[in-house]
């Protein structure tokens, strides 16, 4: 991606939580006001640093869920039961609290719609977050090339941004969205009902367009399966961009 290299050191900024949006029982979006925020590109992440009174610190990375919007940054965070940082962010942080963050980070996993090439997205669980920033950005552009998303979650209730995604797809004939639920389906479910596989990706994405760029994000093993499947379908490895969340997610 021939984006401009952003030069300069990263500084920690103090951001204030201005709104907390529940997304699913385990996921909330944190709307932050970050004075001095330099702006970002869809797909980038931030480092969040928490400091205890005795100086103990914990630092984690979280994807930005929204396109550039001045000094406003939205992070969507999933509570990991054995986590140290995410339970604090999801359950204990209150509007008005301040946390330190630095960013934006990462120029590799970004899409800013500069070309009209097809955009192919594959999300597992909270891996939808950076891809949502791309889809929201794309909707804001007005004119963009075709796009498709395959989104895998365990249950319907764990699909993040479900209503907004359905609305985006309904409003845009060039956007195709398919869900797959791997653990539990509601009665009458018409989406996929299995783990992602090459057949599913081929059906939804419509085959390996040589101009398409694919972005895959989710837990490490999900990403490996999806990326292997895409390369097997004929995508050039260099056009399959991956972001593994690791075992514990972001």
């Amino acid at each position, binding site marked *: 991606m*021939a984006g401009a290299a952003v*030069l300069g*050191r990263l500084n920690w900024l103090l951001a204030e939580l201005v709104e907390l949006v529940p997304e699913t029982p385990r996921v909330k979006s944190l709307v932050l006001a970050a004075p001095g925020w330099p702006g970002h590109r869809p797909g980038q992440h931030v480092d969040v640093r928490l400091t205890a009174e005795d100086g103990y610190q914990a630092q984690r990375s979280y994807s930005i869920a929204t396109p550039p919007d001045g000094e406003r940054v939205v992070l969507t965070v999933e509570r990991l039961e054995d986590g140290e940082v995410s339970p604090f962010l999801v359950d204990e942080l209150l509007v008005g609290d301040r946390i330190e963050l630095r960013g934006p*980070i990462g120029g*590799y996993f970004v899409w800013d719609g500069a070309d009209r090439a097809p955009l192919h997205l594959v999300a597992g669980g909270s891996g939808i977050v950076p891809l949502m920033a791309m889809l929201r950005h794309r909707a804001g552009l007005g004119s963009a090339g075709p796009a498709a998303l395959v989104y895998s979650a365990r249950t319907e209730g764990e699909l993040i941004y479900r209503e907004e995604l359905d609305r985006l797809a309904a409003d845009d004939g060039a956007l195709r969205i398919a869900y797959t639920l791997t653990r539990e389906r509601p009665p009458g479910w018409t989406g996929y009902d299995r783990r992602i596989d090459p057949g599913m990706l081929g059906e939804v994405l419509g085959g390996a367009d040589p101009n398409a760029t694919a972005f895959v994000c989710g837990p490490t093993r999900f990403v490996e399966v999806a990326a292997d499947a895409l390369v097997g379908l004929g995508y050039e490895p*260099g056009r399959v*961009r991956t972001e*593994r969340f*690791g*075992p514990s997610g972001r």
Partner: protein
Amino acid sequence: MENADLKLDGNAAAGELREIFGAEMTIVRATCGSCGAVREMGALSVYLHAPGTVFRCPGCDAVLVRIVRAEERLWLDPSGVSCLELRTGA
């Protein structure tokens, strides 16, 4: 949990690289000194759950770059990389 879960993408270490180099390094192209494969640093394998940060070649698993940081010091071993290609603009 399997160890395979600990593998991340180079992009996950973008903040650390930017802190060290003062530049966006994930789009820098690195040549593996072992197998010769060329990839953007964002596409390398990265292991962060360790005493340091280790970048490996996703093709042959050779160690490309290692970073260790103490409170006020940092050590960097780029010896597994044979070449870096940076964009300098027009």
